[in-house]
């Protein structure tokens, strides 16, 4: 019996209860990173959101590339390890895709493997979970213009100030581009059209990137009130790529009180210099007068 006992191999935890740790999950989104129409020589960053279900302790996720043809194009913006703190269930991994100048014009599908870094513990056979992400990269030599407006916003502003339209734009093409025209039809709260604002001065968005640009409309003469606006954004072909119903508020301009104005004036150096000059002149005049008086007394 003693011999048999000795030969028993324990391949499990001494306390098997601790094996039941509940479902251990790992997730990535998106499951496929798609980069269409990238030209050789260009690079693009992509975000991958890693998530987990168990947040009881800090955990590290390790990303590695495969050995495929394009795997060397992939690099990690900060690190290939993503640390998720206790109580945190999401974190981002940023992958940089750099297409070499000599890349052939075809589709590449390297993969990323992300695995939770699990220490060997006193368990029998621990199972760690991992995920595989496909990087779907289409390399092309054709110019592709593909501009998209993700969001638009007009912050409330004071009467007399410029109207600033914030556009978040995504350029999924491979050439830098900008809207050819941004048009804003401004209406009062009742929907009655008041004016049409237009701008052709919009910042360019670099290829395969997202950028927030500000389109400034001056001289709109909008008074205090609530306004509605219909936004239209046109691409370089003149096609309407974004239509959006907006609203914003023009608030009353802050009035500077006389006290504030005086305080502001006093703070200006311009206010002190004339006073100093006048003071010096008065002192000189007084000295001259006094000296003349003493001369007369002497006589």
């Amino acid at each position, binding site marked *: 019996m003693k011999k048999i006992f000795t030969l028993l191999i324990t*391949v*499990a935890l001494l306390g098997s209860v601790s094996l039941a740790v509940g479902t*251990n999950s790992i997730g990535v989104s998106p*499951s496929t990173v798609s980069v269409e129409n990238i030209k050789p020589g260009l690079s693009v960053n992509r975000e991958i959101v890693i998530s987990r279900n168990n947040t009881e302790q800090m955990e590290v996720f390790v990303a590695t590339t495969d050995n495929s043809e394009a795997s060397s194009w992939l690099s990690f913006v900060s690190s290939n390890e993503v640390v998720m703190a206790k109580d945190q269930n999401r974190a981002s991994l940023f992958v940089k895709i750099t297409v070499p100048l000599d890349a052939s014009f075809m589709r590449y599908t390297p993969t990323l493997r992300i695995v939770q870094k699990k220490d060997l513990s006193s368990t029998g*056979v621990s199972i760690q979970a991992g995920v595989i992400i496909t990087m779907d990269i289409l390399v092309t030599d054709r110019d592709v213009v593909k501009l998209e407006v993700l*969001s638009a916003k007009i912050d409330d502003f004071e009467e007399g100030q410029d109207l600033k339209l914030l556009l978040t734009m995504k350029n999924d093409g491979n050439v830098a581009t900008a809207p050819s025209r941004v048009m804003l039809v401004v209406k009062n709260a009742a929907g009655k059209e008041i004016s049409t604002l237009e701008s052709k001065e919009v910042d360019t968005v670099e290829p395969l990137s997202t950028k927030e640009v500000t389109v400034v409309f001056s001289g709109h003469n909008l008074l205090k009130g609530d306004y509605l606006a219909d936004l239209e954004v046109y691409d370089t072909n003149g096609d309407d790529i974004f239509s959006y119903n907006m*609203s914003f508020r023009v608030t009353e301009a802050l009035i500077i009180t006389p006290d504030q104005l005086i305080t502001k004036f006093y703070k200006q150096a311009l206010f002190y210099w004339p006073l100093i000059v006048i003071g010096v002149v008065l002192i000189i005049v007084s000295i001259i007068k006094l000296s003349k008086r003493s001369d007369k007394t002497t006589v």
Partner: protein
Amino acid sequence: MLNYNIAERHLPKQHHRLMFLSIVVTLSWISSFNTVKTIYSLTSVDTTTTVTVSNSGPVFSVDPGEDSASTGSAPTNVDSNVTFKANATDVNGDQFYLAICRTNSITANNNAAPTCATNQTLCVSSAVNSAAQASCNYRALTGDTETVAWYGFACDHSSGSACTSASQGSSDSGSPFNVNHNPTFTSIAPGSAVDPGQDMDFDAVAQDDDVDTVQDTVHLIVCSSAGASTSGCTNPANQLCASSNVTSDPSCSYSTPGVFAAGNHNYYPYIFDQHGLGATTNPRNGTYSINNKTPSLSNLTLNSGNPINLTVSTTTSVVFTFTASDVNGYGTISSYFGKLYRTAVGVGAADNANEHYTLASCNISNQSGATADYSCSFNVQYHADPTDVANTQYYSDTWTATASVTDSGSLNASSSATPVELNSLLGIGIDSDIDFGNLAQGTDTGAVNELTQVSAQGNTGLNSYVQGIDMSDGLGHTIAKAYQKYSDAAFTYSSGGTVLTGSDVFLDLRVVKTTTTATPAYKSVYWGIAIPTGIPAGNYTGLNTLTGEVSSESYW
């Protein structure tokens, strides 16, 4: 006869000569008087003689007049006073009264105030001292004609009271005085209901019959609360509108605020004439109506316009923001709802965690004027349908959110955010580690397998890859990984299973996509092990890796 040669030399100056002449005349008169007196006394008897010296009436030292002058261009309003003033002196030093009568007739009353002819009294002052100023007031009456002639008398206060003859004063302050009568305000009607920001007309039926000098004009003032004078509402902020002066039926137009509550609003109209006298019916009151307008939605944004990334095994808060506006005021928006759904499913579909969600509540902020900002979030389950890449069931679809608001008048608006993609979430769940239990050297698990459940904790179907490392007792002794086997079905160690290797080997699990939150789809991985001979007894541990991969969409 006194015969005296008035020699030039004795009285060389003229006044001396006159003095002398006067003395002579006086002495002559005294002498003759005494002579006559003596003769009279000798021829008559003694009698008693009495003389009564009569009272003298006062005399105007300042003629009576109006203070201030009541004229055609500056008449006295009905119910306002015309003040008459005059000064008179009485030679007897008596006090005097100022009486203003409608006719040239006065009766002095001894030691009392005088009286005009019956019903002809305008006013009588109290008695004042001689030479002082007397004044009295007449309150203009509605029944007065536009011009009222008057006659002023000063009568003294004495036992034999006497009055002056009538005086009507002179120039503007003289007779007559002018009376301004109230305009007539018959009715007023507001226009039919208008939208906020539109003009509301008020048309009054009103006139003024006074025509003295010129036809009097009237103007209309409309206030939101009671209280006004001819120049406007007591609180200027309450003034809705004011007309110009017109001969009749004034009207004005109120430019209603751009943001204005629907329903009836009180108004208080006033009619005044050009002299500032209001109609006796001021103010009338009534209500005008503002239409209820349909609210509107704007700034609808789902997840800031970005694709949605879900979280494994749980929900993700997806933010949906919008602005609701109502020209009747943001406060009239009485209810709202929001739906998040896969576009092809449609807003009206029933809730289903795979494709359709209903909003629970929103945070409302920036409530002012017509608008309020809504920030809402949907708790989206990990298995909501993805739409991002070709290898998904709904690649051509998107997700959007629709908001709907309803105002207190049951008018509603509905609008949707620009659609976004819902990214595929590759989620793999592993329920437990492997516990092979106690095994003796040279034995294996036979037909008894350890099971590991691999579940789809994302929104895709999945397959997996398997790899592992050697097991170790921590003392330098190992059980090679090749002693472990696995399969997607139960197996007998000696005849089945796949040998574990150190690199990923595909395991075609085909776990379907989870569609019910509480029961994630899963497949089991079956494990077996053999214990080689020649290794020491102990606690051997190892680490296997199950790596998930999105399966072909056809297996979801």
